[in-house]
């Protein structure tokens, strides 16, 4: 049987895998969010983002989010996959998605997956500028 939930931390993220993973005979809707590296933040040019994680806890927290989503909405499959390491401009860093019979459930769930991931999963992002680097959201 194919897993209904996939949560993973990976070095290289391939967003093209996710369609096959979410595709399901009972799903008429598949919704996917891909987060990528943006070149400018507050008018400053970003060279790269560096991600690190507390892997054991991150997987646990990602599993909780996926299970919560399954409970809240009528979903057939959920994927949460985040990359770690150094990522350049335009590279994908996170993919979340859900599939469901109708589109409303997967649209709403997809937003919940990424919003909750950003709040609770122990992953940290450092913005690498030309002459400095900054841990995002670390200080007020």
């Amino acid at each position, binding site marked *: 049987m194919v897993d209904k939930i996939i949560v993973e931390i990976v070095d290289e993220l391939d967003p093209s895998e996710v369609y096959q993973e979410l595709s399901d005979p009972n799903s008429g809707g598949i919704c996917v969010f891909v987060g990528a590296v943006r070149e400018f933040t507050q008018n400053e040019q970003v060279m790269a983002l560096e991600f690190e994680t507390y892997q054991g806890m991150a997987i646990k927290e990602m599993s909780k989010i996926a299970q919560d989503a399954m409970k809240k909405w009528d979903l057939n499959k959920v994927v949460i996959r985040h990359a770690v390491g150094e990522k350049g401009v335009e590279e994908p860093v996170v993919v979340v998605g859900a599939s469901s019979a109708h589109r409303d459930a997967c649209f709403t769930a997809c937003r919940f997956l990424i919003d909750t991931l950003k709040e609770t*999963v122990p992953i940290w992002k450092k913005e690498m500028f030309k002459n400095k680097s900054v841990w995002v*959201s670390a200080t007020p």
Partner: protein
Amino acid sequence: MEVLLFGIAKDIVGSSSYTISENAVMPISVAELKQQLTTDFPELGKLSSLAVAVNSEYAEDGVLLQSQDEIALIPPVSGG
């Protein structure tokens, strides 16, 4: 007692883990651990938030620490 460090907490302390030496006062709770670490490293107290994970679960201030627990300091997360 060893505390795992990540992100900016790792940079502040200058290592990926911090050992509270055996002849120091051992913190018995999450609140005491935070107190001790922010005293030893005042920069930790200036972060937007500072959480502690015990056995890879977020732990409230009142949670008691056991010597075999895996303890980690969780500075503000910024995935996605």
